[in-house]
Each structure stands twice: as structure tokens, then as C-alpha cells.
């Protein structure tokens, strides 16, 4: 069975009144939820144990960067979770968004356009490349599609690396202008709040947009294609345009993320958009709970924080333990010298294997998928339950 099809599904129709209320006022729920998270997070970390890790500004910077990955994961969720198209080269669209900002506002390009238009253009350019990638892959499925997208994901950084004249090659493009936004403020390193707020608002908008699309004719078409492409076509769905739209919408979300990212770090190079980035985002989607907007967002946030905060803290923690180096004959084990950040991908791998074995529905699954994965062999029990309910 196709693993993607197996893992992804949408929220179960809810029957209890409070859940029904949340579902009917989805946008409000997203706004309230995001507002709460955005305001509470910077204060939660003032308390132990978090307060000991880093100062508040560093934490908030980290949250903003996590927000970028939340955006990316939300976009990839459209392609992988809803339409069931495995995309292993998703970082390419992130790169395209970032380079759009570099061309729009840097001394290298000799341009200085305002931030919001570049954000829009970045999303559009990424969407265009999404369609360009999607078009030749329309007839491919599963593994073959994954390989082509993998290739695309490799081609884009290689082009940015080698087209020296236009991209400054491996050195990347630096010294980009920091956006000074009306109302929001300037994206400075010292004051992370304007950037943090901007990211939070864009994530909220993306979540509302994706929830609404998912619950519409197009969302159903995507799910139908994921479930059975041939049957979907036999019900009158134009599978070509639907798939291209999935690629375009997914890519445009990554484009937004790319522009935001570049405007903050102000220097980008092709090395920041390799396969590991694509893989990280995919891991976020799978770990969070494929096909579920809140799940994917939370998954991306948690994975990012583990990677950027927890592992760093683990280094410091282990060093403070003052464990002596142990000689076991063949080698010396000195745990205080281990750099846990280097084991990031080993940990991802272990986490993925563990998840698939213990909790295949993801960290934050929705009830329907949970039921699906747990009761696969027990359809009759589900029937009886439905008959009673």
C-alpha cells in the first residue's frame, strides 16, 4: 500500500458540540490559537528550565525561525499530505523564494524594493517553478515522482552555485537590506519582535488559507487523487490542473518562507538549501501528523526547537556533568566532547523509525487517521460502533 495514502487523511467529522463549534469557526480558532501561542511563548521561556538555556531575545529569534519551518511544513503538507505527491526536493522552492528577496533588495543586484511586494513576487515565482516542476511529473507516481523531485531539489542549488555571474556562486548573496516595515518595525538582530510578529501573522494566514482550501472542492479533488487517481478522473476531476495547483500552492508557501528567511538572515548561499533541508521538512510533516494543519504546524515547531535548542542545551548539559573520559581499550569515550548537533540526522532517522513503529499517525494526529491506522483489520467493529452512534 502507498504509505502516503495510508498515513494521510482529514479530520474526522466531529459529533460532540465543542469540537463541532471549533470546526465551524475554524478561522477564529486558528487566529485565537496562534495569538495565544505567539503571546505566551516569549513568557513561558522566562521560567525554568527554559530560562536557564538562553536569554529571552534568543528564544524569540528561535521561535521566529521555527515559524519559517512551520510555513514550509504547511506548504509541503499540501503536496504530500493532501494530494499524496511525494516531493523530496521541496527546499528548491525555499531557495527560489530566498533568492527572489536577494534580487529584490541587495547591493549585489543593485535593487531595493519594499518588502511586501517582494514577498508577493517571491510566492508567485516559486509557484511558477512549482508548475514547471509539476508539468513534466504529471504522469509519474510514487517512487518515480519522488526521484524526479529529488533531482529538481538538487538542480536548483547547483544552478545557484554555478551561475557565478548572476548568483555570486558559493559565496552567496550578502548584505541584503533589512526590511523596515510600517507598523511592524525593522527586522533587526537586536530586536526580534517585529520579525517574530510578521512570521506569526503570515503563519496564521497560511493556516487559515490552507484549512479553507482543504475544505473546498479543490481540497476534495486533491484527496480523491491521493486515494485513487483513476477513480478521481472518472468522476470528472481534471487531475492535471488539480495536481499542478497542489504543486503551485505548496511551492508558493515555501516561496513566502524563503523571502522571510532571506530578509532576516540577510545573507544566503546555495548551501542552505540542500537535500537535508527538504528531508527535515518532510520529517516535520510526517512526525507532526500528515494531512492535519495544526499537527503539521506543531510538528514543525517541536522538531525545529529540538534541533536548534535542545541539542545545543544537551551539549552544555553534558559538559557540565564533568564525566571523566572512559578508556575501554579499543577507544576512549569522552561524552563531554560529543557534539550532539552533529547527530541531528541520526536522531531524525531514529525518531522516524520509532514513530513508524509506535505512532504512525504522527505526534498530533486527528481522530480519523488514528482510527484508520489502529483499526485497519477491524472494520466490522467500526461499523458496529457507527451503527450504535
Amino acid at each position: 500500500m502507498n504509505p502516503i495514502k495510508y498515513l494521510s487523511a482529514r479530520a474526522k467529522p466531529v459529533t460532540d458540540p465543542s469540537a463541532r463549534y471549533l470546526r465551524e469557526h475554524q478561522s477564529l480558532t486558528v487566529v485565537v490559537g496562534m495569538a495565544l501561542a505567539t503571546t505566551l511563548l516569549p513568557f513561558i521561556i522566562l521560567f525554568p528550565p527554559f530560562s536557564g538555556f538562553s536569554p529571552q531575545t534568543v528564544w524569540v529569534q528561535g521561535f521566529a525561525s521555527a515559524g519559517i519551518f512551520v510555513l514550509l511544513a504547511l506548504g509541503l503538507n499540501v503536496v504530500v499530505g493532501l494530494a499524496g505527491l511525494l516531493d523530496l526536493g521541496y527546499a528548491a522552492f525555499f531557495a527560489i523564494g530566498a533568492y527572489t528577496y536577494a534580487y529584490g533588495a541587495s547591493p549585489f543586484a543593485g535593487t531595493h524594493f519594499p518588502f511586501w511586494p517582494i514577498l508577493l513576487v517571491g510566492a508567485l515565482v516559486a509557484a511558477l517553478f512549482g508548475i514547471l516542476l509539476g508539468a513534466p511529473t504529471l504522469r509519474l507516481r510514487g517512487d518515480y515522482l519522488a526521484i524526479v523531485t529529488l533531482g529538481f531539489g538538487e538542480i536548483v542549488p547547483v544552478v545557484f552555485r554555478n551561475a557565478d555571474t548572476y548568483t555570486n556562486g558559493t559565496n552567496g548573496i550578502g548584505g541584503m537590506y533589512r526590511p523596515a516595515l510600517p507598523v511592524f518595525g525593522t527586522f533587526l538582530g537586536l530586536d526580534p519582535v517585529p520579525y517574530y510578529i510578521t512570521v506569526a501573522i503570515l503563519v496564521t494566514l497560511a493556516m487559515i488559507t490552507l484549512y479553507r482550501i482543504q475544505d473546498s472542492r479543490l481540497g476534495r479533488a486533491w484527496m480523491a487523487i491521493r486515494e485513487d487517481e483513476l477513480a478521481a478522473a472518472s468522476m470528472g476531476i481534471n487531475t492535471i490542473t488539480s495536481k499542478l495547483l497542489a504543486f503551485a500552492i505548496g511551492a508558493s508557501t515555501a516561496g513566502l518562507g524563503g523571502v522571510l528567511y532571506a530578509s532576516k538572515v540577510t545573507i544566503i548561499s546555495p548551501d542552505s538549501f540542500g537535500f537535508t533541508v527538504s528531508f527535515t521538512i518532510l520529517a516535520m510533516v510526517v512526525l507532526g501528523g500528515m494531512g492535519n494543519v495544526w499537527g503539521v504546524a506543531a510538528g514543525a515547531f517541536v522538531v525545529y526547537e529540538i534541533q536548534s535548542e535542545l541539542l545545543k542545551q544537551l551539549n552544555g548539559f553534558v559538559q557540565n556533568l564533568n564525566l571523566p573520559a572512559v578508556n575501554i581499550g579499543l577507544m576512549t569515550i569522552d561524552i563531554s566532547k560529543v557534539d550532539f548537533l552533529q547527530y541531528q540526522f541520526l536522531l531524525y532517522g531514529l525518531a522516524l523509525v520509532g514513530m513508524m513503529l509506535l505512532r504512525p499517525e504522527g505526534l498530533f494526529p486527528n481522530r480519523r487517521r488514528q482510527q484508520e491506522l489502529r483499526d485497519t483489520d477491524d472494520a466490522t467493529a467500526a461499523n458496529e460502533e457507527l451503527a450504535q452512534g
Partner: protein
Amino acid sequence: MSDVARESVLRTVQLTKRFGGLIAVRSVDFDVPAGSISSLIGPNGAGKTTLFNVIAGLSDPTTGFIEFLGRRVVAKPERGWLEPVMWVIPSGALLLAANETVSAGLPQAVTGIVLLAAFAALIATLLLASIRPTWYVVALARLGVFKSARPNDMVAAGIGRTFQNIRLFSNMTATENVLVGMHRQLHQNPLDAVLRTRRQRTEEAEGRQEAIKWLRYVNLTGRDDAVARNLPYGDQRRLEIARALASKPKLLLLDEPTAGMNPSETAEMMKLFARIRDELGLTILLIEHDMRVVMGISDRVTVLDHGEKIAEGTPQEVRGNPKVIEAYLGKGAL
């Protein structure tokens, strides 16, 4: 029943489908009278499902063609090896033109512009061709160079279908399955959905009502929010029919709709087919192995054997036809 007087909804003309050396359907002329229930029968491997798939736009006829409601079906041409060649024709022509500008001694800027145009044409055709075939491909199709339609074009033309091995969207609810069937009836675009316009909201609400109406029509009650794959087998068959009906077809193709059902379920299904014909005025074409169904409900029966049509007529005529008996029971039976 005099089918001669009735006009036909679907007609195949000298339809042949070849898979390499195997001729699955051989020069079949066959028509489905409007408002009838027609059955397609034949021993295993007779080419029934192949014929069905060609009609539903899943595969293209090798030769011959299909006429639906008096119009020849060439909605979308085959994306064969010829099409990529078509894509490069405009840009190829522009490249040649660029070459001409050089030999004609025109300024370099002109050559540059033509070259740019060639590049733009290549990108544009690639993009357009992936969404819809280029206009000249369509024109060639109308001339009969290509002969196929994609399944979604056949739905647009008015053909709905069910599958031999049930192909529901198994992780979606019953209502959602029917809503997918209504895809062509809904007119909202993604922007409507993002902005939740009044149009989109009313359409969704009415769509759900109608979907539930279709579920009631096939006697599926109280299962609106059940995930499709959790439904009992018989209900899944019904849901598939509801989904096909929701696309408002004029011709309904049913591929072995009573396979695996017990006699009482089969009897209920037969009643449903009669209702669909009489109340909705649909024409039904079905493939069936259960002779009680075929003989009990069909207005007309067509028998295929080894890809060829060997008999056609009312159930009574077909039942007595020596060729049919031979195909089913072998030569010795006569």
C-alpha cells in the same frame, strides 16, 4: 421492445482495441438505445471490460470511434510520442527564422529578439501543453488523427461509471465521496474557498444537501459521515452508484454491479436500476455475469466472445441463440 425506433445514446463504430498481438475488441458495432438498460455479457476474457474502458475514456481505441449523443468523441487527444514533437514545432520554426535573419544580413538585435521568442515559445508551449493540448493537436484530433478522450472529458460529456473492483475514495466519508462525484456541478474556484465567499458557502451547503439526497436515493441512510472503507460491501456498491449518479450522467456504466451479492441484495439492486432508468430517465449499460440479473432487467443484451459481437437482441432472443450457447457451454452442448 422496438429499439430501432429509439435513438441511441452511445454508438461504437467498427471499434477495435489491440494490445500488442492480442485483439481484445474486434470491429464491434454496437449501440445503446436511449432510456434502456442494456447488458454486455460474454465469457471471461471476451473483451467486455476493455470495451467499457474505451467508452469511459480510460484507454483509446486502436481503430474505430465512439459516438456519444450523436457527437464523435475526441475531447482530448492521446498524449503519445507525437505530442512532444508538436511542442517543439513553434520554437523550432522560430529558430529557423532566426537563422534566416542572420543570412539575410539583418541587425543582430533582430536575431536576438527572434531567439528570445523561440525560447519563450518553448517554455510557453511546455506549460500550456501540460495543462491542455496545444491548439493544433486538438485540430488534428478533430480530423481524426487522434481518437481518445480522457476520463474526465467523458464525465463532462455525460458518462458516469462504477468499477468492477470497487474504487471508492476509501478514507473519505460517504458524503465526501458523493461530493467528489459532484465535482463538475460545483463552480467555486480556489479563491472563493480562501475568501469563503457567500457563493462558496451556499454552494457547499447545498452540495452537502444534494449529496445526502443521492445517498438516500440509493438507500444509504445513517451512514453519511461513515468513512467509505468501513461500510459493508453492499453499501460500498451503492455508494459507488450514488457517486456516479451525482455527476449527473446521461449514460451510466455499471461494471458487474451485483458481483458478490446475495440473492436478496441482488434483487434490491435490480429494483434500484429500474428506478434509475424510470425516475431519472438515465440509460444504463451494464456488464454482468449473473444471468438472473441480465435476463430479468435488460431491455437489450449484447454478447461478446473473443472480442467479437456474436449476438444482440432481447433477452429471449439471445437466450436461444445457438452461437451464445456455444460460447458459454462449448460446441458439444448443442
